[in-house]
């Protein structure tokens, strides 16, 4: 494949960036007034593919700055970052007017959890005579707490379908792509506000077809990983020997812990007899129990027992094979439940005032106050807000909470 389009068509100037003018203004301000700024860094956050990194480059280009970037593909832990950047943050560039230190996808840094790593990053910010900019998908990630404290937060908005179309049309025109309107619509919907993935898909499709139709988009279908797990599930559920039940998962590049929800979701989908369902879940539960013990003690050589119990246990739980076609489902509930849990613990992060007042542990605070808060906000936003104020939340926090529970 030739030059990736996301590179070829990345915005060169501020005015080419789609719908992030508010964020752009803030970034520009920060860079130009860095020496007087009371925050040491910027934290750009927002969903993937909406222009966080591109914006930094476009602004740098317009201001005649150079960008020193570290991203997730660089081999890095926070300590290495410090070593690599400690010179750049002090020196002056040869040709350009100034310099921007960009640490991309800070939430993806390994070793970032440990104290030393964070300290190294904070030290960079302190020593830097140039503006430091971080990007992250999720600004409220627990691990980013100390980064949040020294940074001004800048939100990047999700792009609407119309905006994605606008971004794609420029490329369609310049590459002379033949794509029908319906196909374009489907492509945009698939992207879910992520312009980068839409452009990638467009390039893939146009390299295979002269004219792109709706069927071609559907053929992209599930992402690769999902078709594979569906196939493995099918083979496992129909298997009647230990070997044929465990084999399908060997080549699958997935951790047993991540496979388990797929099995969990599909047992009652494949099996009809309640005896089979019960036996299958009983085996699966013993398997996960086993897995957890191995994990706790880090005895990974015992993993084969856990996986055999899980896969063969479920497969052999049936009295006889079901001769039917099963359409396997994605484990949506698990995703929702874990998302649910995550949102609740983030709200807990925000409840410092409450914590000071009520003399109680995080778990108790979550069980009692946070759960009630979410419940009230969902039932009746006005009353929920009143309650939130009594708990000592500030207006900006309340609006963040309201926004995030919409995802529940």
């Amino acid at each position, binding site marked *: 494949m030739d030059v990736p389009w996301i590179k070829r068509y990345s915005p060169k100037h501020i005015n080419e960036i789609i719908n992030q003018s508010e964020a752009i203004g803030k970034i520009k301000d920060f860079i130009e007034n860095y020496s007087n700024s009371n925050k040491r860094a910027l934290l750009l956050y927002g969903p993937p593919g909406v222009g966080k990194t591109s914006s930094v480059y476009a602004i740098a280009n317009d201001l005649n700055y150079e960008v020193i970037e570290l991203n997730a593909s660089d081999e890095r832990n926070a300590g290495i970052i410090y070593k690599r950047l400690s010179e750049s943050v002090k020196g002056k560039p040869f040709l350009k007017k100034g310099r921007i230190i960009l640490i991309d996808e800070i939430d993806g840094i390994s070793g970032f959890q440990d104290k030393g790593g964070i300290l190294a990053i904070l030290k960079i910010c302190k020593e830097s005579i140039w503006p430091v900019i971080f990007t992250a998908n999720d600004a409220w990630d627990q691990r980013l707490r100390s980064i949040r404290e020294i940074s001004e937060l800048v939100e990047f908005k999700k792009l609407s379908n119309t905006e994605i179309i606008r971004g794609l049309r420029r490329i369609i025109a310049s590459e002379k792509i033949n794509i029908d309107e319906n196909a374009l619509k489907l492509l945009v919907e698939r992207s879910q506000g992520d312009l980068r993935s839409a452009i990638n898909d467009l390039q893939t499709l146009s390299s295979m077809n002269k004219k792109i139709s709706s069927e071609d988009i559907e053929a992209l279908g599930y992402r690769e990983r999902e078709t594979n797990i569906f196939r493995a599930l099918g083979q496992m559920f129909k298997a009647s020997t230990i070997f044929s039940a465990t084999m399908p998962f060997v080549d699958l590049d997935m951790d047993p812990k991540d496979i*388990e*929800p797929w099995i*969990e979701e599909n*047992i*009652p989908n494949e099996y009809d007899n*309640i*005896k089979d*369902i*019960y036996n299958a*879940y*009983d085996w*699966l*539960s*013993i398997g*996960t*129990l086993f897995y*957890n*013990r191995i*994990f*706790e003690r880090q005895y990974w050589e015992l993993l084969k027992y856990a996986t055999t119990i899980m896969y063969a246990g479920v497969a052999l739980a049936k009295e006889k094979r079901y001769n039917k076609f099963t359409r396997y489902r994605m484990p949506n*509930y*698990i995703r*929702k*439940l874990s998302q*649910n*849990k995550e949102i*609740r613990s983030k709200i807990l992060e925000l409840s410092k005032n*409450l914590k000071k*007042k*009520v*003399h*109680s*542990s*995080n*778990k*108790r605070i979550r069980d*009692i*106050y946070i*759960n*009630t808060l*979410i*419940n*009230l906000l969902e*039932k*009746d936003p006005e*009353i929920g807000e*009143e*309650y939130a*104020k*009594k*708990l*000592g939340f500030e207006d900006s926090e309340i609006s963040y909470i309201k926004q995030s529970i919409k995802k*529940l």
Partner: protein
Amino acid sequence: MSYEIWTEKYRPKKLDDIKGQEDIIKHLKAFVSNKNMPHLLFSGPAGVGKTTAALAIANELYGDHWEQNVLILNASDDRGIDIIREKVKEFARTKSIGDVPFKIIFLDEADAMTRDAQQALRRIMEEYAGNTRFILSCNYSSKIIEPIQSRTVVFRFKELSKESVFDILKSIADKEQLNISEDSLEAIYYISEGDMRKSINILQAAALYSKDITPDLIYDVSSVAKPKEIQEILNLAYNGEFNNARGKLLDLMLKYGLAGEDIIKFISKEVNSMKISEKEKLEIIYYIGEVEYRLLEGSDPLVQLDSLLAYLGLKGIKE
């Protein structure tokens, strides 16, 4: 004032105001009047007055200076004995303010600490015994190592009686000018199981809606599953409608943000109201116990709940 949490507003400030723990209070008052006390260990369920008693002691001993003289730590949040040691060291460095010759360190949820951490804690307690007294609190004193138990005076806080809970709630309702019926009090008690913090919080949430507190309102505001909802799921599962029961159960968990452990507790409460033989109930309760045990051991909650529902379905098959 809008920033006002009833669980704090109505937290008793004086030892005498604490309800339902009269025997313990008598002893604690003696410590206060002598201005001397040993290390203490408070054990008992959540929301029955352990923290309140500790804060009341502090308040009566030090009055306005209590905050300078008391360090509150939580063993399950202040992760690691080293962090605790640092904080204790820092705090114990200075002398107490006022005429009481010691400072107080209140360590909540001490049973969340590992045995090794507790050993270290014991040494810390000894090291700083000169000018500090520890009050440890825990749910189960059996989870506290012997050497600590033997160095403390243990007070076992009882579960609050229904009458005590009702009395406290009624007096709050009076002060806030609420009308609360007997069955609403029952509803609060069912949900909170005598946990005062939970009870008062539910009352405050309900009062945001209306001065007239009804059982429906109570269930509405307290994000817990209603007994009826749980019963429906159990009956569906027992009658062989596994998929239906599973869907409803998952919806409940999402709706109320319940963890697997929570929902198991609700289920075990509701088994008794199923219309099946006592022998079957017993077998089901046994299996629920197994499920809860596996959960504690770290198995996946959803898988556990699935297997429980399937087990009910199995029991429901009549020969």
